[in-house]
């Protein structure tokens, strides 16, 4: 089967090199149809059923625009997630689907699309930068997901909302939890950048397998991707490279 991947609002959701998540998937699956949905377009998922819906990192104003454009489709989004459509939302894109984004310095406190019970609080002069490593069910325990956080926001959600991963090192949704991101059925939301799919070839292979169970997943530039992953994994195992602010703090 041919894959259809919908990128939401790439003209504003394109920070931190994260659109390479989709560029890389497109190289792994050259037959994939990439649909780039602009802010003023009706999303493909409203009437169709893409195999993957992707939203990448946005500016603060971009987040608010995305919420405005996606809110009318809340019911359809819920239905797609419940019926198993795959979503990947990276960096602050997850916050768009939350219940609230509060940004005191920029002077707004806005409701999100409301798909997930989570709130984001931004500190515009307290950007957090750090590393994360943690296991995910998609891949073997010896191939954990690695990534980075570089963000103004911290997210709070009930611990009952399942995370994308639980960090072995590094923080999760905020500095007091190791639970990182959100997953529901095949929806994955994570604040990790890198880009995630380029940096984690084993996870990407698993994702490709889920998107198209009838085809053997093939990774573009597999040798180089695995070399880069293994080198980073080794470095992430070095205690000297971890800092106190990357530890989960007690509540």
């Amino acid at each position: 089967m041919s894959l259809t991947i919908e990128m939401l609002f790439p003209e504003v959701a394109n920070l931190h090199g994260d659109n390479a998540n989709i560029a890389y998937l497109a190289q792994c699956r050259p037959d994939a149809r990439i649909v780039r949905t602009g802010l003023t377009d009706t999303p493909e998922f409203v009437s169709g059923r893409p195999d993957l819906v992707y939203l990448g990192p946005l500016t603060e104003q971009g987040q608010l625009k995305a919420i405005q454009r996606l809110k009318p489709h809340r019911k359809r989004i819920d239905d797609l997630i419940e019926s198993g459509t795959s979503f990947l939302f990276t960096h602050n894109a997850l916050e768009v689907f939350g219940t609230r984004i509060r940004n005191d310095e920029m002077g707004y406190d806005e409701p999100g699309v409301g798909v997930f019970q989570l709130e984001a609080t931004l500190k515009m002069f307290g950007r957090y930068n750090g590393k994360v490593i943690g296991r995910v069910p998609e891949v073997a325990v010896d191939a954990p997901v690695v990534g980075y956080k570089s963000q103004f926001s911290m997210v709070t959600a009930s611990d009952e909302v399942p995370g994308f991963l639980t960090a072995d090192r590094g923080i999760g949704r905020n500095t007091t939890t190791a639970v990182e991101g959100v997953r529901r059925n095949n929806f994955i939301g994570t604040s990790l950048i890198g880009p995630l799919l380029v940096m984690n070839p084993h996870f990407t292979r698993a994702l490709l397998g889920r998107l198209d169970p009838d085809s053997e997943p093939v990774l573009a530039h597999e040798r180089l991707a695995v070399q880069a992953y293994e080198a980073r994994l080794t470095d992430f195992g070095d205690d000297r490279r971890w800092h106190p602010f990357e530890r989960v703090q007690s509540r």
Partner: protein
Amino acid sequence: MRLLLTIWAVKLSVFALRALGRQGTHVPGLIARKLHPGIIGAVRHPARVVVVTGTNGKTTVSNLLAEALEAQGLRVASNRNGSNLAAGVATTLIGAVTWTGRPKADIAVMEMDERSAKLILPGLVPDLLVCMNLTRDSIKRNAHPAYIAWIISSALPERTSLVLNADDLIAASLGGESNPRTYFAVDRLPTDGDRPSGAAVDVAICPVCDHSLDWEYWRFNHIGKVRCPACGFRSPAAAYRALDIDAANGRVTLELDGESHPARLINGNIVNVYNEIAVAAALGRLGVPKDRIVAAFERLEPPTTRFATEMVGDVQLVRLLTKGLVGVACSRAFEYLASFRGRKAVVLNIDEVSERVTDVENTAWTYDADYEYLADDSLGQIVVGGVRRHDQALRLAIAGVDPARILTVESETAAADLIELDGADEVFNLHSVHNALITGNPVQKRLRARLQEHA
């Protein structure tokens, strides 16, 4: 009295540091801000204060501007030899007053780190602020250009006049309705395109109606001239423009607030064309007569530290500063490399030095850089050195560079030994800022020696 004590403490510390062979531009400012947190606003300023900021070009423009104003006979205080953070500004301001606190300069020209606006602008209250551009910079520190624009605008005094780049819609958006504004631009060039490409395009939709913009010309990143086909929004009109650029003969036409003047082109690189027209606009706003603005460019020379070329036998050896962690800066370096027409061999060492041992570099920035410029058959081999060589190799492959042409090696300097020089017309030494001395210099030396043996 606190102010005077601070002035004396700073002047003495500058004297002591210089006696020890140090520049004494940052530490005295730290002392000043410790003794008197409001020092930037408390110390008496020269009669006029100009701030130059932006992602790229602020150092060159503030230096050129200071030089041009000195040539007008003015006593200029500037931080050209020091820090562009709040401490550096404080040191410079104190250096521009007597021991009793009286101003001894006619005008201050301050380069300002754009991220430091909140600490500098409210006290400094500049008469004029020049913003060259706001493009993507460090992901960790600067996040995205709209964030930096927000920081500057939030700190900008209402009475400050603005000199802004009309070709950069983010920089052009600075300030509020009360700020008088003048725009500069560079007219369409033969090399410009009609639609944006590349990884880091931060203006794609109309700020009024969200519709996709049309481009009258697109230059790089989000630099160019736009109009909205849906609501009619357009890039602001520029009163100061550079046009008819003749790099071969070093000439340009400067449109100066309604008057057209042929002038010397200080440098043919597009970055320096923007620098020249920005200096012209700032001088114009400061009331310098137009003929004297044009005459100033006969003498001004921009620094050319970002690249250097030399011929070794028949081969051109090119050293190119390729600022790691900043994708946009790397894109410009790669674009420049791609403009060479011969067969190329490239040594690439752009790991961040500070994160080699005590951290693990976040290489997300490499996907904000257009490595695609390197995906060309004229590139015979690229040797990548450093800790994050595998990430760089993967990025190159994703960009379309044939993996068979990519070689990785842990030692940065060993890359200069491994690069295949046979058949190369041009050999490139690409390094970052922080490894310029420890890697850039030895690689250059080794490449030169090998090319000499080869010749």
